[in-house]
């Protein structure tokens, strides 16, 4: 029972991270209609930036806020300078640019900060004794913090989309860009804000996952998170915020249970479980569980 609870907690924690990055993917998809392959590496880059700030003896919370701002600016700049010029041609070009950014941002992070593993400090208390016992299982504060961050972000995004003008315009552009344009919505600004927002969400995912991850902060830290997050976004239908969260949690928990209880999967086949889920979803329900019937343009 304790073991089960601990695996459940691990699954929920990892799942929250996947959900965060999946939310970033969904925000871009709703605006631009493509999967941003560079989302994970963008998060990696901003996390390196946050780590670098902490080595300059800047408090970790300030470093995190700075990395969120950097994520927003970087995301908006990428949309404006790289995505928009090629999008007029076609959607495939956007995918290729995103793939280029994937390798580009990774190499750039390596070039600036080196390829050796860094220790990103956690914003939450994460000593060996910083836990509460729940039914015999240890619930660490830093894991709790990640779940809390996801809940907080969901609330913020829901408020943004439902009650603000920018949110209304983002939904309008996602729904029918031409109609939104005809109503006077500044579509290009809205798209840049969407990419910026997803850059900031990704940055949050990055600074939260690296202190928890056994790999810490290295150039490959985000690969698995990105793959799991893509599976989560796909699970939810790529355009649903709720779907992305449900998808992320589901994949996190499934993964923890599969690696824990199915002995031949173990640690080494962990990544395969996300891949398996992607294939299964594409096969059984191409629009995901929460997706609208609009076609996926990837």
């Amino acid at each position, binding site marked *: 029972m304790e073991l089960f609870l601990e695996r459940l907690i691990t699954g929920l924690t990892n799942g929250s991270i996947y959900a965060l990055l999946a939310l970033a993917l969904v925000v871009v998809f709703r605006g631009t209609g493509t999967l941003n392959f560079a989302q994970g590496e963008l998060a990696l880059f901003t996390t390196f930036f946050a780590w670098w700030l902490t080595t300059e003896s800047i408090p970790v919370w300030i470093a995190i806020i700075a990395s969120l701002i950097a994520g927003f600016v970087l995301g908006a700049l990428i949309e404006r300078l790289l995505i928009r010029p090629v999008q007029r041609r076609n959607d495939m070009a956007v995918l290729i640019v995103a793939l280029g950014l994937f390798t580009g941002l990774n190499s750039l992070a390596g070039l600036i900060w080196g390829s050796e593993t860094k220790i990103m400090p956690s914003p939450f208390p994460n000593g060996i004794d910083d836990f509460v016992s729940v039914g015999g299982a240890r619930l660490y504060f830093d894991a709790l913090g990640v779940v809390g961050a996801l809940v907080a972000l969901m609330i913020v995004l829901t408020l943004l989309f439902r009650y603000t003008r920018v949110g*209304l*315009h983002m*939904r*309008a552009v*996602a*729904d*029918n860009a*031409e*109609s*939104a*344009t*005809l*109503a*006077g*919505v*500044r579509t290009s600004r809205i798209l840049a804000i969407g990419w910026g927002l997803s850059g900031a969400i990704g940055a949050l995912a990055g600074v939260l996952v690296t202190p928890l991850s056994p790999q810490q902060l290295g150039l490959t830290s985000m690969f698995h998170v990105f793959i799991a997050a893509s599976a989560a976004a796909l699970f939810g239908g790529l355009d649903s915020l709720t779907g992305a969260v449900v998808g992320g949690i589901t994949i996190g928990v499934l993964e923890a249970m599969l690696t824990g209880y199915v002995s031949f999967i173990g640690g080494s086949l962990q990544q395969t479980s996300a891949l398996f889920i992607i294939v299964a979803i594409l096969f059984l329900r191409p629009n995901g569980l929460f997706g*609208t019937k609009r076609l996926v343009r990837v």
Partner: protein
Amino acid sequence: MSLLSIRDLHAGYGSADVLHGISMDVDAGQVVVVLGANGAGKTTTMRAIAGLIGRRGTVELDGKPLGKRPEQVVGAGISLVPQGRGTLGQLTVMDNLRVGAALRDDKDGVASDIERWTEVFPVLGRRSHQIAGSLSGGEQQMLAVARALMSRPRLLLCDEPSLGLAPIVVQELFDTLSQINKADGTALLIVEQNAELAMDLADTVYLLDVGTIAATGTPAEFRSDDAVRSAYLGY
């Protein structure tokens, strides 16, 4: 002086021009109807004015050059109801109307306009919290008109408003458009294939043929011109 003045307008898609230098005027409070067969360039004219596609030539509103970006056009007081209605299908009826007020900052004015248009189109009031995609074709057309009116335009462009609607719904829609024109003095520029019905509303009619203006006049002149009548009105 005319409200909207178009001189030698060229526009098209890619390198191919669809409009080969058309000129047109809409006076304040007037109803102008543009007739023409499929492919004559009616929709292209509307999209060029609205700023959805590039254009060459002169387009002036109140004697001032009209901006080429869609938000500039809306901001200047011209609003387009696109062909096919452009419903924001996943948004509620209420949100559709609020998007129509994208450029306005007067919250109270927006609220009172929403109230007004949901009275003019009672079905929108009854369904204000429903997803717009679930409305019928006629209801979506009314929503499209109401959304366009939310920007308080002085000139409303309607691209084939009758397309795909039952005759009785079309009649109702045209009646409402006519009432809005009379009550608010909102000028209308309507593109239609349903020539007879549109001409009942019109002060001036233009006939578009393969990207040029083939004829212009009052509805009475059009109906009495045998050549035009047999070629374009079909009786």
